[in-house]
Every structure is written in structure tokens, then in C-alpha cells.
């Protein structure tokens, strides 16, 4: 469950990114955050992962008040929230398999390196044949699937994605979203910030529209435009 209560965010340069956002995303929900560039979608994603802090208001993730989280407790939050970025954030010097293993090492889960979890995860995202390839040898869709595998391998109950199809062609974008739908069907809460109108219109899922830092629309089965 993700809850934002009257969240305001003003960046140090004076930009008001969020202006009283309140929303609730229950467990196992699948929601799109839509709106023009600069509306505040990315800020919401970053607040959920405590990549940014609020100016005023509260953010709760699974009953944890993220705004009051001590610095040393932030890693625990981030292990529960998987984030998928438009630019994938893969390490270019590591293979697909090593990129996935890297997060297990970084989160001190060395035991899972040898119990078949990595192979299982790579099979789930359809990358079994690409495990020894480096990111530059992969298509955009495959790179994004590697990034999803990286979030998946940690069995995060929440996945937030910031423009996950932004750098992908239509087909790869569609495949990526299908993968996220499958994960949602297995119980993962999925929040996707996107500009992809066709995708949102086709999916007919919950749509939260943000404009100038405010929620202007929240429909349970909406399209890109209201």
C-alpha cells in the first residue's frame, strides 16, 4: 500500500514540483501516473523510493512513514520497492546475469546466488539465452527486461517504473508492460509513470493524472485523456 497525504515538494531552485498531492494505491494495484512533462510524476516515484524527501506532507509505503525514515533505515525501504528507470541503469561492464547478481550482493543476499533464483528470474523475463551478454549487446527491450529482472530477483512487493517504455519501440514497450502485468497478477503492486498514450488507452487500468503538481483525475479504468 502506498499513501501520499497532502504532499508538497519544492526543489532548492524554487521549482514547485508537487502542490498538495494526496493519493492511495492499495496492495496489488496496477496504476498509471500520466500527465505532461514537469507535472510531477517522476517526483512522486522518487518520493516513494526516498530518492527525494517531501517539503511538507507524508508518504507511507507499507505502513512505513517514509518521510520520517532515518537515513540508516532507507536501504530496508529500497529493498521492498523496486524501481525501473527509462535509462535502465545497468552496469555496462557486467553481463545480464552479473547485473542481476550484483543487486543480490549489494543487498547482502549471497545465499541466493547459488540457489537457482537468478536463473528462474531470467527465465521469467525471457532472457535465458542472453545471460552472458553485455548491455551494449542487447536491444532496448532486453535491457529493460534485465532491469526488471534486477527488481524481480529481490522479490520486491512494490514495483515503480519511471517511463519504462520511453526508450523502446512499440513492440518492446508492449512486451515490457505485459511483463509488468504478469508480475502484478502474481501479487506485485505496480505503479508506472508514462507518456505512452496508446499503452494507457489499451490497458484500461487505473489512471492518476497529474498536472502542475496536483492530482486532477483518478479513474479506476481510464484512458490517457479523461
Amino acid at each position, binding site marked *: 500500500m502506498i499513501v501520499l497525504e497532502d504532499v508538497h515538494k519544492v526543489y532548492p531552485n524554487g521549482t514547485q514540483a508537487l502542490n498538495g498531492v494526496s493519493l492511495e494505491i492499495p496492495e496489488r494495484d496496477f496504476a498509471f501516473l500520466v500527465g505532461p512533462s514537469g507535472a510531477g510524476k517522476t517526483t512522486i516515484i522518487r518520493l516513494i*523510493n526516498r*530518492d527525494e524527501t517531501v517539503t511538507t506532507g507524508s508518504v507511507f509505503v507499507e505502513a512505513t512513514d517514509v518521510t520520517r525514515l532515518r537515513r*540508516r533505515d*532507507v*536501504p*530496508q*525501504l*529500497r*529493498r521492498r520497492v*523496486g*524501481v525501473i528507470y527509462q535509462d535502465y*541503469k545497468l*552496469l555496462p561492464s557486467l553481463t545480464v546475469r552479473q547485473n542481476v547478481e*550484483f*543487486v543480490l*550482493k*549489494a*543487498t*547482502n543476499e*549471497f*545465499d541466493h546466488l547459488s540457489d537457482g533464483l537468478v536463473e528462474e528470474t531470467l527465465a521469467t523475463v525471457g532472457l535465458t539465452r542472453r545471460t552472458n551478454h553485455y548491455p551494449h549487446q542487447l536491444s532496448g527491450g532486453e535491457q529493460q527486461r534485465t532491469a526488471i529482472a*534486477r527488481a524481480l530477483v*529481490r522479490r520486491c512487493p512494490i514495483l515503480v517504473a519511471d517511463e519504462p517504455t520511453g526508450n523502446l519501440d512499440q513492440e518492446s514497450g508492449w512486451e515490457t508492460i505485459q511483463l509488468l502485468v504478469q508480475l502484478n497478477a502474481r501479487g506485485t503492486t505496480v505503479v508506472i509513470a508514462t507518456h505512452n498514450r496508446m499503452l494507457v488507452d489499451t490497458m484500461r487500468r487505473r489512471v492518476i493524472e497529474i498536472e502542475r503538481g496536483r492530482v486532477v483525475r483518478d479513474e479506476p479504468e481510464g484512458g490517457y485523456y479523461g
Partner: protein
Amino acid sequence: MARLHVARYLLGSALTGLWRNRTMTGGAIVTTAIMLITLAGFLAINDTLNQMVTALGRKSNLIAYVRDEARPTQVMAIIDDLRTRPGVGEVQFVSKEDALAIFESRFVDQRDILDVLQSNPLPASVELRLNDPSVVPDLAQELQTMTTVFDDVVVPLDVVEEVIGISNLARVAGSVIIIALTGVTLFVIVNTIRIAVFARRQEIEIMKLVGATDWFVRGPFVAEGAIIGGVGAGIAAIALVVLYAQAAPVVTRIVSFLPVSTDTDFVRNLAVFTLLVGLIVGSLGSYFSVRRYLSV
């Protein structure tokens, strides 16, 4: 099991990082070694000067000659008091008879002189052996004021004061140089690690975003710093032991009055100290280098 994995990961990452920047790593190790050899050299000089001061202190006898008319009880009371003073080692009363006996034993050929004299002309004295030469001036002045008891106070003040002066100067200069050299070593290690951190900033960012703890991110870099400091210090320690073994006997032969430590304990302690300084400076330097990149 988990700890073994973590240790292997830390060491593996550190060695990979060091190998990736091997030119910089080599430079930092050599600089650290040179700095630590110089630092240990200054410590050895300081130690020699300290030993010199102590040795002079042990030799510095302050002698107060007792007036013939002074009452023995008064002299004994002063001796008892002197024995309780800090810096005072041994206090011995040499009676007139003892003085004569010493004179006779030392100047066997000139016993005729004494035969000419009707009575014993040698005064009784109080001889002080001092552990701390810095107490000499005050003590001498105090005894000199007791004119009813003591006739004269003899003190090798000039030499003592000069050695104390040189020793203090060397200590201050040594401390300044030691601080400066530690600073330079820290600077070199910090910059080497900063370059390593900069090269891996993307890795650090991803680690932080997926929930790695600060320690997990910092660990490999601290290990890198400790390895640079430790290897540099190891080279310095080996060089120190070899150089000292070669140089100490030569110095002792040429300048025989210098109390240069030739015992292995001193060199071993110095080598261990050098290793510790290297490890601590290396680890701390790295610890602070990474801090800036942890606020993801």
C-alpha cells in the same frame, strides 16, 4: 557463511578496483612507503635524542658540599626530603671520612699531601643522581639558598640545559614534520580513492538505489585504502628493519657517544607502529573520500 561471502566480496571488489587504477595505486603505495620511512626516521632521531637526555640525566650528579658546622640532623632531614622529590633518583650522603677514603683510593700517589695536613680538609657532601635533568636548575637554586647547611652547589648546568633545549626543539620540529608527512600521506590516499570512487560512481548510485547499506558501498573503498596504506607501510617497515640493521652499528661506531638504539625491540615496535599508521591513515582516508557519494 554470510560473513565469508561479504569478506570475499569486499576483498574481491577492492582488488579489482586497485588493479583497474593500477598506475595510481602503485604511485600511492610508493608515496605512502616513502612518507612512512621518513616518518619512522624522524621517530628514530627523536628516540635517540630522548635517550641522550635520559642518559645525561642519569649521569648528571648534583653535588652539594656540606659546611663543617652544619648539624647532622639538619642534613639528614634535607636528604629525606630530597628523596621524595620527583625527578630525583638517588641521594647519597658522603661524610668527610668517606670523602677522604675516596680521595685516598683515587690518588694513591699523592697521599703525601694529606700527610702534610693536620686535619681532614675535605667537606662532607650530598650527591644527587637525577632521573630528570629538567629539575636540576630549580633544585640547585633551592640548595644554594640553604647557606647555613651548604657551602657550595656544583652542577653541570650548561650541558644539561643545552641538551634539553636541543631535545625540545627536535621534539617540536619532529612533531610538525610527522603531522605534515601524515597529512601528505592522507592527501595522496584520499585522492587515489576519490578517483576510484569517481570511476565507480554509477555502480555506487545503483547500489544505493537497490538498497545497499552505506557500509556495503563504503567497504570495498575502505579496504582499498587499507591495502594501499598497509602495503606501503609494509614496504616501509621492511626497509626500516633492513636500513636500521645496517646503519645503527655504523652510527654507533662513528659517534660513539650517541645512545642509538640497536635492540631489535625498538625497530620491531617502530615497524609495527608504521604498519598501524599506514592501515589507519589508508582506511580513514578512504572512509571520508566515499562519504560525499553516499547521499543518493
